[in-house]
């Protein structure tokens, strides 16, 4: 058996290799009480604040230590998915609302309800009404939002003043800040702008990409429309109200030429646009800018004024070997005291912290008046986009169809009708 003799050394090499590999890639070697928490921020001030809070938690829970692991946001979900499918799942993590909804439905997130409801000191009723829209499923809470960031309008005061146009904040105070008014102002403004600049930019141009849903949401709601009705599972993109809303934006881009078209890199923060919709976390880009700016609420529409928020939250993972401790950590990080300390970075969803907004945001880039008139009501009255459980599949099917909207001769009702036809089978209403 010559071949056996020949193959023996090869087999030995394989065994050596595999043994070495087995030593290196074994399962999680964390001891009980050693928690890991994944976040996507790399901001040192934010990480320091989280470090401080987790150190306090470790002090009050003997034998506990917490390691915060920062993963770049672009890779966050991919890396998390690999870790969740192996034996190296984190105990606690940040999640965006759409992913939290899907992971809740898949049973990957720990149930926080008992821990949060049983402690009167936690004050679950302190949260704003829509805080748990995407974090509560069938009455059970699976995450707590640490950031409930409202969308608002930001505008270039210099460009508006040069064109003799009124201040949108003043218009909003009189109830006259509407999409139709914005479109009309944009038509006046556009001829006065240099080539390559536009009157209006969608939220960082996201209307032409994967974030089209949340970018269109404020517009749709102000017209009385919506993407879907989460209670009935009905697609509402082809409602007359939704069609009118998208039609207005389509007109601004292709007929009026006043909104940043697809493919253009024009950016409000670089001074290339007069209006955009944005969130608090984006305002850092204004540092060093050479134009005066102002903020006001989202434009209203035929459906009335709207307030829309985007959320991220703390979750504990169901497969954590320290699940109970992880649940406690989520609870600790979302108490009133913790929320107040994190509020300078992440807009809080707790009413009691919002009551102190003047103090909390004293050093914010946002003017004090805007904190009271825009930020606080934006959170208190804000509604996040209600994500269906199989959001990723809805996105995957609908986004290529959305692309057909962004041509000059697109038939808006037909395209929106086509999207509804394709996503309706996925938008099942909640059981019961």
């Amino acid at each position, binding site marked *: 058996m010559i071949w056996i003799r020949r193959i023996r050394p090869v087999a*030995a090499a*394989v065994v050596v290799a595999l043994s070495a590999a087995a030593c290196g890639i074994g399962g999680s070697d964390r001891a009980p009480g050693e928690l890991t928490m994944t976040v996507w921020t790399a901001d040192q001030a934010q990480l320091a604040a989280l470090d401080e809070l987790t150190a306090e938690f470790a002090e009050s829970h003997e034998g506990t230590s917490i390691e915060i692991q920062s993963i770049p946001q672009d890779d966050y979900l991919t890396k998390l998915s690999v870790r969740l499918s192996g034996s190296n799942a984190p105990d606690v993590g940040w999640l965006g609302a759409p992913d939290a909804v899907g992971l809740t439905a*898949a049973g990957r997130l720990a149930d926080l309800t008992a821990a949060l409801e049983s402690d009167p000191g936690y004050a679950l009723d302190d949260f704003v009404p829509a805080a748990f829209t995407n974090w509560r499923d069938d009455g059970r809470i699976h995450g707590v939002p640490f950031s409930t960031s409202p969308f608002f309008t930001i505008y270039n005061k210099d460009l508006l003043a040069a064109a003799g146009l009124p201040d949108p904040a003043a218009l909003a105070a009189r109830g006259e800040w509407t999409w139709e008014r914005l479109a009309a102002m944009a038509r006046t403004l556009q001829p006065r702008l240099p080539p390559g600049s536009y009157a209006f930019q969608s939220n960082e141009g996201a209307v032409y990409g994967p974030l089209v849903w949340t970018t269109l949401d404020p517009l749709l709601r102000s017209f009385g429309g919506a993407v879907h009705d989460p209670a009935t599972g009905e697609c509402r993109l082809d409602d007359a109200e939704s069609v009118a809303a998208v039609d207005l934006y389509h007109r601004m881009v292709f007929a009026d030429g006043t909104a940043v078209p697809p493919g253009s890199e024009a950016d409000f923060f670089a001074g290339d646009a007069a209006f955009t919709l944005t969130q608090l976390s984006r305002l850092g880009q204004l540092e060093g800018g050479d134009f005066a700016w102002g903020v006001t609420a989202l434009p209203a529409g035929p459906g009335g004024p709207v307030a829309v928020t985007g959320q991220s939250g703390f979750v504990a993972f169901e497969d954590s070997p320290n699940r109970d401790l992880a649940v406690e950590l989520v609870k600790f990080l979302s108490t009133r005291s913790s929320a107040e300390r994190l509020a300078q970075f992440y807009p809080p969803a707790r009413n009691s912290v919002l009551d102190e907004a003047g103090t909390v945001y004293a050093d914010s880039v946002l003017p004090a008046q805007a904190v009271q008139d825009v930020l606080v009501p934006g959170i208190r009255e804000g509604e996040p986009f209600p994500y269906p459980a199989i959001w*990723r599949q809805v996105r*995957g099917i609908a986004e*290529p169809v959305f692309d057909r909207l962004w041509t000059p001769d697109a038939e808006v009702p037909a395209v929106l009708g086509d999207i509804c036809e394709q996503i309706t089978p996925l938008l099942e209403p909640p059981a019961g």
Partner: protein
Amino acid sequence: VTSTFPTAPPRAGAVPDRPPRRRATRRAREALTAYLLISPQVLGLLLFVIGPLVGVVVLSFTHTDLLYGTSRPAGLANFTQLASGDPTFWHSVGVTVVFATGLVAINVVLSLVLALVLDRNLRGAGLILTLVFLPVVTSQAAWAVVWRFLLQGEGGTVNQLLAAVGVTGPNWLFEPVPALASVTVVAALKTVGLKAVIFLAALRSIPREVVEAARMDGAGEWQLHRRVILPLLAPTTLVVVIITLIGSFQVFDYILLMTNGGPAHATTVLAFYVYEQGFELFRTGYAAALAVVLFALTLALVAGQWAARRRWVHDD
């Protein structure tokens, strides 16, 4: 069975052979040392190449969602779905074929023409070669992002140049046909310099006597190139075509950075579709099935080309 070979008589003055047992022990020790030395390489190959490859094949027969942590056997369901229930798959195959054909044609023709011109030792040839080679050493991501800016519909440099000669350019990356054409040309231009250098080296290795003999036989420039030089370049052309073709099936970064697969899947090549299904939608099992098909298609194409080489490669 006994050996029929006669045993060689000991050479005069030769050192007497060591006892067979000691020799066997030494050989075993040498073999063990050798295998231990290659074991890191074997480990790397097993862990990072063979293991994942086998893993992908296994995954392709499951309904696995990496994010939601669900997995169950699927049999051939993923393959049945992509063959008959997923029009986007067939669309992406079509896009891949168009992209690959365009890339190979542009790349081979441009680089060959460039090499033929540069082979004439014209003044400034070195400068031209340097300029054409610059994109090769440029970061692929930077190349794609710069072109995304140049190809903006309004205000993009390409459209401004077209406007200067009275032509209204399209919104290159947001209209289906121009988008696919744009990513194909941008990807092709990136490596023309490299392929031109390969062709140039092959051209300079053609014996002068062969060219002179053809000229003495009365061959004109066209006949010389058509009948002598191009056939002698056939092995190099085959290598360039295969390299380009394999590269075209793996293209991903241009698509991600320039069009994200859009508009309306117009630039979704098969490799990008695998990424979209696997890492955007986390349909890991289905993405694995797509990857297996992509692998099989690439293998079949290369094998076909390799088999066909006898018909049109004259390398003796």
